């Protein structure tokens, strides 16, 4: 099978060459000493000038974290993490009130430029092609997170006019304490799981979005994350609350500099959708996956959960996961409101020694709730990729409906692809369908493409893109373009 051998060689060629975002920015950091204890948490809270209730909340999280053990059920393995050997706070050197672009450290701006993050409106729009026949697209607002502190937020004004709050969560704590206090931890409680508890104790920043009743957010909101300081775990906290009849589309994308030592990342994202509200949350994750021998790379242990509180509300997760050495991530939906809808679209690509254990949970509580899960997994090199998902229908969720499809594609014979769905149904009126397939790229498809003059690489690229299409088409257009690029980088050589 020469075609297979070629593909395998091509995948092996990837090596270190392909991580094009591998650079490091030298900016003075304001770093807390290593280690985690109540003093660290008090320090973080003090630095961020937080109210007393939040400090107490953090301490409660820390105390419950102390009683918890790292979860071991996921199909990933890594050397033990020394949580005392990490910095829990790092902020770019702070000038008083750097609220305009001119005041921002130029080095930082250059970093964003390298990343291709268009902070300026023009730059933002320049990279975006307009689909035929469409007038100007609504712009995107970016809340940029540089390590732990949000530095710049654009489009604040337009959003304010619409009544949308979009700001760093630390600012929200200061400016909208009641809102934050009401919703923070209401979807992911402080003691939810080991990593969520850790995050609750030490989170430094993240985004806060509030879309009031009936408002359709006038632009897509976007946060670019970037891990920068050595040995700094990043603990973002994102909270999105969308009131009755309102809607928002939120984009999250990340890159990280190349590095030798593993870095821990434990974010928490909470979404709340009230009656008739809708939230679309899209992620492109491209953190450093480690080199071809599996050294280095990010540990990405994320808790993402959305609550469809109101009737007919909708939460849709879309993710393209190409980076990180280890991914542990299960964006979930709690479908409480009658007729609420949860969606999960995922592409996970692993190569070299990457490990991904990702999937979703759909908890059907309300009547006539619906959920759709489409998960596409591509494994290459020596990597292992697992889809792990739960569909649970509670006794009162009559008329609940779930459809799940999980497809895995294996490239090379040293990788693994696994599917672990859990289906728990306690309502006779529910309908659940699950299907999963695992295969390699079929020789017939390859032959068909080659016969029509496509190179092996182009053919594989075409087939892989087709394989992921059901998910990629769910992404907002700007992200779809980036996602395809990332697929190329991750599977360069086998993807044209």
């Amino acid at each position, binding site marked *: 099978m020469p075609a297979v051998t070629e593909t395998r060689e091509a995948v092996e060629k990837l090596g270190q060459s392909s991580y094009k975002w591998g650079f490091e920015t030298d900016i003075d950091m304001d770093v807390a000493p290593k280690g985690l204890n109540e003093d660290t948490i008090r320090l973080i809270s003090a630095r961020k000038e937080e109210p007393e209730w939040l400090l107490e909340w953090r301490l409660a999280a820390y105390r419950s974290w102390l009683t918890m053990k790292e979860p071991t059920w996921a199909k990933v393995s890594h050397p033990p993490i020394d949580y005392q050997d990490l910095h829990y706070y790092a902020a770019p050197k702070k000038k008083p009130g750097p609220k305009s672009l001119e005041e921002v450290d130029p080095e930082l701006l250059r970093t964003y430029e390298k990343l291709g993050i268009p902070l300026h409106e023009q730059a933002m729009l320049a990279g975006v092609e307009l689909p035929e026949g469409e007038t100007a697209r609504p712009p995107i607002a970016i809340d940029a997170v540089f390590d732990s502190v949000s530095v710049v937020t654009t489009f604040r004004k337009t959003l304010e006019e619409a009544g949308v709050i979009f700001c760093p969560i630390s600012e929200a704590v200061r400016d909208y304490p009641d809102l934050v206090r009401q919703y923070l931890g209401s979807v992911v409680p402080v003691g939810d799981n080991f990593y969520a508890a850790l995050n609750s104790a030490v989170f430094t920043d993240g985004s806060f979005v509030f879309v009031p009743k009936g408002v359709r957010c006038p632009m897509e909101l976007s946060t670019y994350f970037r891990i920068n300081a050595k040995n700094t775990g990043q603990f973002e906290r994102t909270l999105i609350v969308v009131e009755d009849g309102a809607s928002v589309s939120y984009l999250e994308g990340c890159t990280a500099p190349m590095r030798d030592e593993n870095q821990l990342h434990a974010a928490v994202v909470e979404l709340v959708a009230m009656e008739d509200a809708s939230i679309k949350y899209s992620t492109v994750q491209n953190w450093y996956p480690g080199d071809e021998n599996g050294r280095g790379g990010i540990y990405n242990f994320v808790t993402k959960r959305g609550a469809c509180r109101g009737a007919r509300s909708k939460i849709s997760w879309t993710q393209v996961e190409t980076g990180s050495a280890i991914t542990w991530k299960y964006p979930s939906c709690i479908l409480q409101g009658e007729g609420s809808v949860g969606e999960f679209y995922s592409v996970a690509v692993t190569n070299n020694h990457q490990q991904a254990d990702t999937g979703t949970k759909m908890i059907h509580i309300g009547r006539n709730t619906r959920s759709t899960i489409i998960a596409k997994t591509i494994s290459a090199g020596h990597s292992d990729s697992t889809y792990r998902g739960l569909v649970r229908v509670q006794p009162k969720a009559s008329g609940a409906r779930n459809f799940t499809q999980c497809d895995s594609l294996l490239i090379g014979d040293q990788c693994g692809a696994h599917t672990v769905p859990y289906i728990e149904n306690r309502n006779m009126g529910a309908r659940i*369908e699950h299907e*999963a397939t695992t295969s390699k790229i079929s020789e017939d498809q390859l032959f068909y493409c080659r016969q029509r003059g496509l190179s092996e690489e182009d053919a594989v690229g075409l087939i892989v893109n087709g394989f992921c299409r059901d998910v990629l088409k769910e992404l907002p257009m700007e992200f779809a373009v980036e996602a395809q690029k990332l697929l190329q980088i991750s599977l360069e050589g086998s993807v044209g």
Partner: protein
Amino acid sequence: MSAITQDRSGTLAPFGARLDGLTDSVRKAAIGALHKSGLPDRRVEEWRYTSLRFLAETPLAAPADIYDVAQVQAQLENLGLSTGPLADLPRLVFVNGRYAEAFSVPPADVEVSFFAKTQTFGTLSCPDRDPLTALNAALATDGAQLHVPAGKKAGHVLLVSLGQTDASVSFHPRHSVTLEEGAELTLISIQAGQGRYLHNPVLEISVAAQANLRHVTLQAEGQDAACLATTYAQVAERGTYDSFVLGLGGALSRQEIHARLAAPFAIVHVNGAQMLGSRQIGDVTSVITHAAPDCTSRQTVRNVLDGHARGVFQGKVYVDRVAQKTDGYQMNQALLLSENAEIDAKPELEIYADDVKCSHGATVGALDEDQLFYLRSRGVPDAEARQILIHAFLDEALGLIEDETARTLCTQMLARSFPVAGENA
């Protein structure tokens, strides 16, 4: 998945002193493993849906040597083993885990020995990993050991296990079936009984090259009984193990099958159906390991759940790195007839080879309203219409039983466990 490190021997209390003072090395090793693991609880991944609390409620003694012969006779009659087509087949009957010669008709073409005499443990089981198998290894007293010589077409053998007890007892038969090259056998296992007991059999199956074992298990245990059966099967080149399990009885039942496709072109079928009501819990768990290239596995399991019944399906297909050209298919479907019924399913694929074709599917739902309407609109009463649809649902699974005698038996037993058709309750 996570290892339990603390001493959990306390969960073994129902077995009292029965686990003490055993000297045989296999049994001692099994007890050692058991003291570490205890009986599994729901924190153990493999047991997350099936609780063994049922067992912890009463002590489980060793069964008495004496039982009510007339009752056993009646049970055999009830199972259709006294008259009719099954009555003429060779059979090995075990009562409370001990061989009952008086009720048995040994087969002519199969060499039969008994665990009570040989005390030989096979090599396929995993007492270190599977606590119920360790429990069996510790307490096994008897069991049938069938051996079919090379090339022999041995026809049918019935392996009947009856529980017949007034006290709470447990018995742990240890069976084995070996088919030499090119041999054939149809094995019908029947599990039934009366009274409160735990039936914890281990069956080791070895199918040599080009041999073919058809194995149908009818689980119709007593309504107060627990049946926790573990089967280990190994299949050699071009051999076939074709298994079907019909689960009808027991308060708690688990049919766990570990099938290993050990050489190229081996075939394994692990099919089954469950029809449960009241507060029954029925668990079908399987691990199919593709350890060689070019093998095929098929699995179709259908569940019908009424009352407060709970069905569990856990099916894992493991494809080793060397098992290229694997063809694996798995389907689990459940029909819920009552608001209080529950199904928990975990179909799992673990795949390390790239040139494979593996898929699984699962569906859960109620009876199709359109189909029901179709029948009602043609004058079929509601209850009868439901029966027709339930039968149709299960027939698709029963149709996978190749052996006609076994299929007829299963169909009859299934029909009996239905409420009377045509009567509006």
